[in-house]
């Protein structure tokens, strides 16, 4: 018997092309996703060196970050963004890369479309010039974000130079209570482990609570692995995974499907395999979570109190004080009841069809508070079309929400959707850094359920109160 291996090790071993002495390994990449913001300098690099995209068949491009979420067909008013988008079209044409362009029904946030098209499959290595590539790990793939130099490396050679990371098992036991979601699991993990806790590691999420999640809920968790410091997060593939992939446009068919499933079944971590570290959490203990500060590790149970600088170790005081000043929230006080201005339901963390269904279910029959601007931004055009088929758009609009076209939108505030200085938002996205959602804007990260409950009341609200009522 060969040595028991983890899911990560099996994929890693299979993709190492070569490794010399103490040099990093040359790792083969199965799928390269490309977007308009982190690729122009890579394409230019190829051009300058007279190189081509070596495997355009393993490369797919979309536009998501700098595009507006106004209806399709309207001109892009931001000239610099428009130039970047035109450049993307030219680059893809010149280098023969498939592009889901502005008018395409297939367009969407890069981490939403991979799984949606069945491009994301277990056992693959997947990269993109985007840190939330970790999302695709939900399928039992090794997926991580890379810089633009590396985007060029993959384009030119279909490989990357990588050092083997360590592995950390994050075991989530127990069962989630009503009103508590997979977003709350990952916010709790990051609050516990810190934003640098995963540096140098790949996370593998295991345990009863993880196994019972749907694929879209699993994606929410893997998505935010990077917020915990890990470049990649993975979940072993199982029947839930196969069921989700089956029938998707790029999924294997017929005999190939059977062979694929057989292979995928060999991927989960072997009995007795060892991780370099372990973190354990009990889902029974979790409540809805919310962040109060300016990084995703500054999170707490929604009914908790914001820590005061005096309560934290000396080394963290300066940063916490700075965060509380920026957020204009007081240490030692609760966040519940705090008035908010904007609710953003979207981003690659929580903009899939099941997120929208859960949100629509909760808002049905209610109105968005007069003091709140509620933006609902589907993660892809396919999600948008599906939601409209189900009438979710009408439910949102009747409640007073703004129903937008797919894109990163206010998650990154480089496309026209943004907070005004001083505004407070509850966002289902993944980053609450200073100015992330607009210069001077303040972000509380939470689940779609918490976001909707708060949109209705106009205040930070515990969704469980609403569900009991």
């Amino acid at each position, binding site marked *: 018997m060969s040595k028991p291996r983890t899911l990560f090790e099996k994929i890693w071993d299979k993709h190492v092309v070569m490794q010399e002495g103490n040099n990093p390994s040359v790792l083969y990449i199965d799928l390269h996703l490309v977007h308009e913001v982190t690729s122009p300098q890579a394409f230019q690099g190829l051009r300058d060196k007279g190189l081509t995209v070596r495997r355009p068949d393993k490369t797919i491009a979309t536009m998501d970050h700098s595009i507006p979420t106004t209806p399709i067909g309207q001109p892009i008013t931001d000239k610099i963004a428009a130039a970047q988008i035109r450049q993307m079209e030219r680059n893809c044409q010149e280098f023969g890369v498939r592009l889901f362009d502005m008018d395409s029904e297939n367009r969407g946030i890069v981490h939403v479309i991979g799984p949606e098209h069945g491009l994301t499959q277990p056992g693959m290595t997947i990269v993109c010039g985007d840190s939330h590539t970790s999302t695709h790990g939900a399928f039992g793939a090794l997926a991580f*974000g890379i*810089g633009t130099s590396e985007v060029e490396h993959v384009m030119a050679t279909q490989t990357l130079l990588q050092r083997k990371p360590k592995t950390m098992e994050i075991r989530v036991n127990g069962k989630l209570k009503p009103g508590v979601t997979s977003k709350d699991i990952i916010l709790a993990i990051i609050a516990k482990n810190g934003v640098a806790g995963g540096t140098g590691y790949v996370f593998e999420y295991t345990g009863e609570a993880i196994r019972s999640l749907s694929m879209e809920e699993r994606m929410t968790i893997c998505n935010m692995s990077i917020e915990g410091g890990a470049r990649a997060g993975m979940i072993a593939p199982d029947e839930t995974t196969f069921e989700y992939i089956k029938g998707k446009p790029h999924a294997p068919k017929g005999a190939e499907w059977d062979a694929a499933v057989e292979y995928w079944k060999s991927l989960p971590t072997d009995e007795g395999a060892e991780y370099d570290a372990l973190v354990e959490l009990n889902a029974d203990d979790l409540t809805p979570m919310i962040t109060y500060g300016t990084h995703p590790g500054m999170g707490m149970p929604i009914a908790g109190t914001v820590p005061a600088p005096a309560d934290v170790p000396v080394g963290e005081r300066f940063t916490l004080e700075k965060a509380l000043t920026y957020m204009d929230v007081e240490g030692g006080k609760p966040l519940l009841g705090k008035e908010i201005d904007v609710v953003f339901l979207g981003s690659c963390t929580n903009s899939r069809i099941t997120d929208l269904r859960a949100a629509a279910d909760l808002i049905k029959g209610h109105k968005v508070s007069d003091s709140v601007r509620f933006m609902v931004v589907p993660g892809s055009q396919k999600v948008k079309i599906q939601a409209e088929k189900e009438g979710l758009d009408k439910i949102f609009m009747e409640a007073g929400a703004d129903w937008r076209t797919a894109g990163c939108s206010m998650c990154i505030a480089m496309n026209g959707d943004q907070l005004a200085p001083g505004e407070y938002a509850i966002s289902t996205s993944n*980053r609450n850094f200073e100015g992330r959602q607009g210069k001077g804007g303040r972000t509380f990260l939470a689940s779609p359920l918490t976001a909707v409950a708060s949109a209705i009341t106009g205040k930070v609200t515990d969704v469980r109160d609403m569900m009991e009522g």
Partner: protein
Amino acid sequence: MEEFKQLNAKVVAIETTDIDTDQIIPAIFLKTTTKVGLGKNLFSHWRYNEDGSPKEDFIINTPEAEGAEILLAGDNFGCGSSREHAPWALMDYGFKAIVSTSFADIFRNNSLKNGLLPVIVDEETHAQLMSLAMEDPNLHLSIDLESQTLNLPDGRKVEFPIDAFSKTCMLEGIDQLGYLQKQLDKIEAFEADYGNRVDTLTPA
């Protein structure tokens, strides 16, 4: 990429921990299609007022910071996104090395690929450097990459870690793409054997 051998330069310190890439270069400036000119927007949110005038109390805007090539920063520098615009902006501004107790993975990789040296020091050294920088606005440090040492004003030499491969690339100014291209034979052989692996992307 330029060679990096030694550096003797002025230090500017930002005490904040977990400085993320949205602070280093806000997303609004990522609509560019080139690498140049990002330095003027480095730390933009901290550096400029609403009307675009510089915030005088932010360290980077003070006369003492002028000419600094070493940035001393809090733990976990460069967390957040994978944007390589972060090291591009730091370098375009004039920084050549960043000293901290820890760096986010992707930022560190991106920096090494551009010739920006991440110098990792232990907490004690870091605290000492912070107080030195607070006391002396003209603090200079010297770094020698070959021996992997940071030289403190009191004569103490502190070793810092860097993997041998990245070190050679930095010392010689080698672009890592060249190394990968030399392995194309092996990559092709790997691919030839790949047909019987089921995890290939099915064609469109």
